[in-house]
């Protein structure tokens, strides 16, 4: 696979057949090494040890598919002369497109909001769709929470799921040991998660960039391991079950008298609870968004963004970077705590299984793919990722494989995320969107 980007520009459609042939041979060799080794042979347990199962046919088809795919790429994409590839758009059209997308962007948020508000009452909405949108909204909320830490303050956090876990376990344990209700636990879970955010924040104040990333990852793993092994308290791998459901201002969603449907004179339906859950997570997510947008305009929000751009300049201007970082961790953690207790009450059962690293990676991927620091981007990325994940439910075992591939492809296609413009929080006279390239992001100072 020779580097095509460095090829000399040639007029018109032209293929150097020698080069293509050489490239295809190399591709074939690599594909044979990769797929010939792992698809063609498979070890299976047999009497007295392992036995080798041979599947040359599948390996052959996969290798052939790779070569044909590469040939098609050569024929249809890489044969054009350099400079006229589909990616390059003239500057005039580009700025025009930016204007249009800015206009669309302005209307997009409110439209989505109205759609989200009426969604449960639309005729085609069934239980499955509602459950899926609750899941998507949970990730939107987590994405917005992480956006504070990564997108605004520029602190790369790979252990965000730890706060989610703390929120979920706080509610489950408080309900189990003290019988607290959901509405009492929700703020408590947020406070506890924020508190843990500060505890984690203190030791990592001096760390930068990837060091910070790896320590937060370690922190996430530590929380999970403790939850897994502290059997007497957390139930270990068995998890906690029978977590109480939330009530509607004291009205439980039950068939009995004094329940929600009885009070409002409706026929009992389990659908009511799902709709209630939907609005609950919608309200929580909107609260996250509202608080974030307000904070961005307050001194603390500006301090976060200043910290992201240049830590040394921040310090020389007299900002207390320690407290700025700690508030970012605390507030980001708090929203994850809220989301966690919502997760616990929705599922009714939690175990450490739900809080693995892959979950942190998923939330981070949503934030980065959406375009860090962009609130709308998080929504689009959540719908794309979680929705896409559901579409491939049929393909069961290939689902994660496709998911991983999609992550790679989208990232290469749009490294700055789907929404690549940013609205500055402070401006002179007129609000102007700036390109994401102008903003330092997640450089992790």
């Amino acid at each position: 696979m020779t580097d095509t980007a460095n090829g000399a520009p040639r007029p018109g459609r032209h293929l150097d057949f020698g080069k293509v042939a050489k490239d295809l041979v190399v591709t074939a060799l690599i594909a044979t090494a990769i797929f010939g080794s792992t698809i063609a042979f498979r070890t299976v347990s047999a009497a007295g040890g392992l036995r080798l199962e041979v599947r040359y046919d599948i390996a052959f088809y996969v290798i052939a598919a790779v070569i044909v795919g590469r040939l098609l790429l050569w024929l249809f994409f890489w044969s054009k002369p350099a400079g006229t590839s589909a990616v390059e758009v003239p500057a005039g059209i580009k700025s025009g497109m930016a204007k249009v997308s800015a206009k669309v962007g302005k209307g997009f948020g409110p439209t989505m909001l109205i759609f989200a508000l009426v969604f449960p009452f639309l005729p085609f909405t069934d239980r499955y769709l509602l459950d899926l949108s609750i899941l998507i909204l949970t990730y939107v909320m987590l994405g917005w929470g992480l956006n504070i830490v990564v997108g605004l303050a520029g602190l790369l956090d790979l252990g965000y799921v730890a706060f989610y876990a703390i929120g979920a376990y706080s509610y489950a344990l408080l309900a189990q040991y003290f019988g607290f209700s959901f509405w009492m636990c929700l703020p408590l879970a947020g406070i506890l998660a924020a508190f843990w955010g500060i505890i984690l924040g203190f030791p990592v104040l001096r760390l930068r960039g990837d060091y910070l990333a790896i320590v937060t990852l370690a922190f996430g793993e530590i929380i999970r391991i403790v939850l897994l092994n502290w059997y007497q308290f957390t139930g270990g791998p068995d998890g906690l079950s029978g977590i109480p459901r939330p009530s509607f201002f004291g009205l439980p969603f039950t068939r009995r008298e004094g329940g929600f449907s009885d009070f409002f004179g409706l026929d009992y339906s389990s659908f009511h609870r799902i709709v209630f859950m939907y609005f609950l997570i919608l309200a929580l997510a909107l609260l996250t968004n509202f608080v974030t947008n307000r904070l961005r305009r307050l001194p603390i929000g500006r301090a976060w963004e200043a910290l992201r751009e240049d830590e040394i300049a921040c310090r020389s201007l007299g900002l207390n970077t320690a407290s700025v970082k700690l508030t970012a961790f605390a507030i980001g953690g708090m929203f994850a705590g809220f989301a966690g207790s919502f997760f616990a009450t929705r599922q009714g059962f939690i175990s450490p299984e739900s809080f693995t690293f892959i979950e942190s990676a998923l939330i981070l991927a949503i934030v980065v793919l959406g375009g860090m620091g962009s609130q709308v981007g998080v929504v689009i990325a959540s719908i794309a990722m979680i929705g896409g994940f559901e579409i491939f439910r049929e393909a069961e075992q290939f689902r994660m494989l496709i998911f991983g591939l999609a992550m790679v492809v989208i990232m290469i296609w749009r490294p700055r995320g789907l929404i690549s413009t940013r609205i500055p929080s402070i401006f002179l006279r007129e609000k102007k969107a700036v390109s994401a390239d102008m903003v330092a992001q997640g450089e992790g100072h």
Partner: protein
Amino acid sequence: MEYFLQQLINGITLGSIYGLIAIGYTMVYGIIGMINFAHGDIFMVSSFIALIVITALGLTVSTGLGLTILALILVLVTSMVIASVFGWTTERLAYRPLRGSFRLAPLITAIGISIVLQNYIQITQGARVKPLQPLIENGYTLMTRADGFTVQLSNMQILIITVTIILMTIFSLIIAKTSLGRAQRACEQDRKMASLLGINVDRTISMTFVMGAALAAVAGLMFLLYYGVIDFFIGFVAGVKAFTAAVLGGIGSLPGAMLGGLVIGLIETFWSAYFSIEYKDVAAFSMLAIVLIFLPQGLLGKPEVEKV
């Protein structure tokens, strides 16, 4: 005392494996400044390839020691080559297009590749744990305590430690003496300047991934032989610990990675031996946090100068 000595031997063996993986992290981080999240999974893939080759060769414990060692060299070379191809391809497909892009983009693709590799192996090789009967048995009894507790140094452990030392020496020499190593060190210091001086930066970075993957393949075979069980998920935990080791030793430093690996291996072994086996990972990760707080550049790393 005897118990301590035994744990020391076990810890050094485990530390050698971590050290070999950590080198891949530290070299890649040194040269392009990214955490290659998929590195742990390259290690996992390579141990599966080693298992396939061992099964294909029909190696068992009854094969003579001389023949076993010859066969294992064949296994090692095969899995090193194939793992290198995996490493090279991931770099070419997922990281090179993002070179010069912002820092987080390759991290996300690396996580994506890690998910892809794990699920690819789960689909093609099955989700079940793969057991391998021990191929090399016996060893030396170094000491016997009054109550019959013996300090054992198994042949397997000798093999692992020897192979690690040999390969470490070879790779240190490659980096110190060859033109490839010089190019790597030049790219690490200043990539733009290196390319101005005629070094093919892309090729050098590719070679770094190939070397890292080859060493991960060595660790993969050692892990397979030592523990005798592998599954598609071993890459994550081993990868995180090896990265911890690389950071602990001072990222970008080869001896540092080896030292960090040994320290992590020893901490983990002693913690499991004297305290609790469940919390051994917590001990290793806490150690990482503590070291980074008090010694941010790691044990052997150069202090980072902050410039405006």
